[in-house]
């Protein structure tokens, strides 16, 4: 250990950066208790419990008191539905892209084949392509595809293939794969091949080797890849907008539309709950890990 690691500068700047990261979050959470419906300025916390009362745009009294907006949220089917869709998309896409991406990483890192360089390069496309272009081209593709399929199978009415959560998920997967792959690749580079060889040597076939040895060892990489992908997915607006269909509105789309009207504190309430859940989860995991070691 070197005696200089704990430089006060580092610690100071670290604290500052964390403040920078969390200041908006704190504000955002505070506004979840905002009395003002319009939610532009903070007009104080909803003072008292009781029947719903509102005086020129400021909630003065609510059955739920300060937690008025949390109650409203629980009633707001639109938001909840959007949130649900977002989760469905994010989770499905993350799972799938993590699997596919990991496979790709294995291929690129452990095997030699003709399309190697090509694949590696093609993986950078989603990173550099402007979102709107990706959104529109994918939409064009789907609609062409669907129209032709519908004509071939002459499907009609609701039987027709259409935009929806499915198309959103597919397009999300396609821009999430590269991030997973690159991260897992990084991990694989660090992982000595001899572990896999040892497993095979002991009689494990390719699949078992992966399941029992490779995967557990690259798990951290896979997880962080999945996290990155997840982070990108739950926030995506443009691509989702073009590829979604009736009834598949996600949170970003919903909220983005709300810009045109009032962003009521309900959304702050939503974010607040979500963040708390995640934070708690994180510390639970941390606790468990510490117990293991």
């Amino acid at each position, binding site marked *: 250990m070197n005696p200089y690691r704990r430089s006060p500068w580092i610690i100071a700047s670290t604290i500052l950066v964390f403040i920078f990261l969390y200041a908006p979050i704190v504000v955002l959470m505070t506004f979840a208790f905002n009395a003002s*419906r*319009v939610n*532009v*300025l903070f007009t104080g916390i909803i003072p008292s419990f009781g029947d719903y009362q*509102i*005086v*020129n*745009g400021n*909630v003065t009294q609510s059955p739920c008191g300060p937690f008025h907006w949390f109650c409203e949220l629980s*009633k*707001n*089917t*639109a*938001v909840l539905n959007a949130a649900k869709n977002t989760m469905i998309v994010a989770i499905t896409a993350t799972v799938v892209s993590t699997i596919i991406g990991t496979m790709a990483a294995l291929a690129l890192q452990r095997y030699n084949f003709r399309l190697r360089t090509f694949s590696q390069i093609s993986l950078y496309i989603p990173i550099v392509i402007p979102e709107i272009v990706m959104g*529109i081209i994918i*939409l*064009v593709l*789907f*609609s*062409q595809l*669907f*129209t032709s399929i519908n004509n071939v199978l002459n499907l*009609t*009415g*609701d039987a*027709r293939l*259409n*935009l929806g959560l499915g198309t959103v998920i597919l397009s999300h997967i396609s821009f999430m794969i590269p991030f997973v792959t690159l991260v897992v690749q990084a991990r694989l580079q660090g992982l000595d091949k001899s572990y896999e060889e040892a497993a095979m040597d002991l009689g494990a076939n390719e699949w078992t080797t992966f399941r029992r040895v490779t995967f557990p060892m690259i798990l951290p990489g896979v997880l962080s890849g999945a996290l990155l992908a997840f982070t990108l997915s739950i926030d995506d607006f443009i691509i989702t*907008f*073009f590829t*979604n*269909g*009736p*009834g*598949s*509105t996600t949170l970003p*789309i*919903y909220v*983005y*539309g*709300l*810009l*045109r*009207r*009032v*962003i*009521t504190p309900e959304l702050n309430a939503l974010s607040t709950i979500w963040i708390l859940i995640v934070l708690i989860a994180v510390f639970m995991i941390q606790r468990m890990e510490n117990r293991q070691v």
Partner: protein
Amino acid sequence: GGGSSSQQPATKSSASGKVTKDGFNCPEPNPRIPVTSTQLNLFVWTQYIPEDFYECFQLVYGIKVNYDEYSSNEEMDAKLQAGATSYDLVQPTDYTVTLMIHQGLLQPLDHSKLPVLSNFNPAYMNLAFDPGNKYTIPFQNGTDAIVVNTAKVTDLPTSWADLWKPEYKGRMVFADDSRAVIGLTLLTLGYDVNTTDQSQLDQAKQKLAQLIPSIKKFDSDSPSADLIAGDVDLGETWTGEAFLAQAQLGTIKFIYPKEGVILWQDNWAMPKSAPHTDAAYAWLNYTMQGDMFWMMLTSFPYTNPNDAALNYAKGSTMQVTDVNGSSTTLGDVYNAYIDSPITNPPADVIKSGHRIDDVGDATPLYDQIWTEVKGQ
């Protein structure tokens, strides 16, 4: 959602006895239209439709309503043009209608299936963008005019031209809408808002170039927020935002400029590819009945073209919550609507108003101007 309005059960004869979550007793559709489809897909402006519309329609017709939302005509048009085929109804604003007709994205409406047409105020029918309402029926409309916070601004602008005054520098908000802003610039020069004349446009560009630096924010989302928060003091905005801002901040004033306002109207239209036309007709007729459409008044402070709705609301004692969420009677809401020059502009304002229309090949010119003045 933002639009949901909570009422006591209506004591109307036509009540169906079917009641929504918010306790609204859905009226019977009249006439009831025979429908075979079991679904309806809408592509609508974000948060532009009261929850109860969806619920009631489902309750009385048993048709499930799926909807997608967009926040600009261009997005909607782009998506349909790119081949989104599943929508039964969309809500284009006037100039977009012309465009979509050209693009062949819309199908003509069968007026025989639209008895509801009689509900509308003729002033909002048969407009230039769709003569004879071949493709569209009105939904809501409003104006773009000057908004001012009288508490902060002493000498009030009376014309678009006034906005060029140096004292407003850095205090103004404008819609982030090339057509509207270039349009009003053209007006100050005495030109038509839809001109395609190169030299006129060049002059407009010069003039606009002087305005841009003194604009603090371009905002087509919610300029009201900045007005309320005091980050801007005046600018150009549209009916709904002005009304919202005023509701929060009494000192907000909506001024109709000398050169004339810019008029706009959102309409219902039916894409060619609509899979459930029958359900779509049912929806149009049902939701625009007077005893349904009044809901727009309580949560969407725009100019309402639906006389039946206005009449229904007039003097009604029904308990409702208004735009600010405070509860009053529907009658009062009606009065507020009628009395407000924002939602109910004087007739001459409407008459002297201008409408943005599609300019076809000239569109890139407008965009070019916008890009240049902003990119300077």
